[in-house]
């Protein structure tokens, strides 16, 4: 047995976008155990549901996280709509799908940039974020915000997208495809990236299943698990495909995210083609919710679960959520056993950690 050392990793670390803390127990250069601690940015947002009007809470829910903000607002709204038996107008569902999938493209491009940065590939990082900027401009143009949209509400959406803007989005995305192809093939073709990521952090399908991995983490190990198959929203109509890889390593997870970007673009284009002309974008909300509901939906990072319990007043009794990062921490800890210290940053990054969602 070599010398045992304990290295604290995070919450402040150059490679970490968010504050997670791991105590790494090392034997020489090898990690034998990783002990996590979270809770550095707990803000008590779930508790806030007890004192905010259930309709106004959407704007708080959105601010749980800056990257999947739209999906948080949508998850909360879906849960309340199901308790109250509200049917969301079709156009609103399409608009939600468009914004939701644009969020996925922007989240994955952000992750790819961060991954390139963690590898020391600054040039690639800049290109990924340059492309992401196009998506942020679309958000700015359609919602008035770059990362927090405040367009989702209980019963539908608050803003419509005009036909000209939809046509512009379609054009922009189709034009972007080629550019994306050029930049993103570098992740697959480049020797630097491949040598660094291929075979690193292998997760077998059994492990992914046993540790409850979600999102690209599970799909890269060949598990066909995606909440968009559950039939919420309009995913059935707009050409959604479950994207899986079989390699189970860091490169596999990168490939899943890259292919999802292209699938999302296809879905947005289809949604724009199929969006109903009827301009109703919200259903009236009458009375107060009473009952409970479990909403499951797919965020860019994986499955998120919203649980709400209402008691017939304007304040909900309880709201709890399980975020994809929380679900992916067990598999990460397993993954870290036996790797070299130098591989820890990229492996932590590979689950696409979003600690602010995780801690609320």
């Amino acid at each position, binding site marked *: 047995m070599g010398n045992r050392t304990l290295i604290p990793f995070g919450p402040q670390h150059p490679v970490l976008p968010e504050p997670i803390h791991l105590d790494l127990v090392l034997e020489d250069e090898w990690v034998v155990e990783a002990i996590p601690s979270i809770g550095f940015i707990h803000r008590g947002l779930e508790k806030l549901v007890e004192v905010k009007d259930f309709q106004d809470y959407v704007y708080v829910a959105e601010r749980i996280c800056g990257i999947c903000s739209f999906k948080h607002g949508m998850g909360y709204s879906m849960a309340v709509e199901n308790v109250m038996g509200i049917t969301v107008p079709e156009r609103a569902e399409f608009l939600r799908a468009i914004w939701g999938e644009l969020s996925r493209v922007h989240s994955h491009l952000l992750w790819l940039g961060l991954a390139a940065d963690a590898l020391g590939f600054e040039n690639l990082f800049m290109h990924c974020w340059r492309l992401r900027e196009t998506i942020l401009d679309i958000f700015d143009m359609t919602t008035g915000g770059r990362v*927090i949209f405040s367009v989702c509400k209980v019963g539908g959406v608050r803003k419509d997208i005009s036909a000209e803007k939809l046509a512009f989005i379609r054009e922009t995305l189709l034009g972007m495809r080629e550019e994306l192809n050029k930049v993103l093939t570098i992740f697959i073709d480049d020797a630097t990236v491949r040598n660094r990521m291929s075979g690193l952090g292998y997760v077998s399908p059994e492990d992914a299943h046993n540790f409850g991995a979600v999102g690209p983490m599970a799909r890269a190990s060949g598990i066909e698990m995606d909440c968009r198959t559950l039939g919420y929203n309009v995913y059935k109509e707009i050409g959604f495909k479950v994207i899986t890889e079989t390699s189970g390593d860091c490169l596999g997870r990168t490939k899943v995210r890259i292919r999802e970007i292209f699938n999302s673009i296809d879905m947005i284009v289809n949604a724009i083609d199929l969006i109903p002309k009827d301009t109703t974008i919200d259903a009236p909300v009458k009375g107060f919710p009473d009952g409970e509901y479990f909403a499951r939906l797919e965020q860019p990072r994986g499955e998120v679960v919203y649980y709400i319990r209402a008691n017939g007043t304007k304040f909900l009794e309880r709201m709890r959520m399980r975020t994809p990062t929380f679900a992916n921490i067990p598999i990460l800890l397993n993954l870290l056993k036996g790797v070299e210290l130098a591989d820890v940053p990229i492996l932590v990054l590979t689950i696409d950690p979003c600690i602010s969602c995780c801690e609320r």
Partner: protein
Amino acid sequence: MRRRFFNAPMIKTALRSLFKAPATVKFPTAPMEYGEIYRGIIENDIEACIFCGMCVKKCPAGVIDVIRDEKTWSIDRSGCIQCANCVTNCPKKCLKMVNVAPAAMTEQSVESLVNA
């Protein structure tokens, strides 16, 4: 495994960027452009306001305050999350969002408007 150390796609991309205009904006010298519907700061047309307090009730951040007797409407801009919920719910439609980002501030202050 055959290793390719000469990376054509990256070199091509890098070279192309060399001859293109920068993707970034030179911010302090070039003016900042906000989109048409950019959610910026809240303004109140105090002449039209009836001090009903609807915006106070609807603000998720709790940054608006209304004193009906003194005909005062005030906002703590540092706490505003720019959700526009107050604008949507104002019965007199006297609140609006201007497409300018809130200015940086060195200390927290509450801005008050009085309908004299």
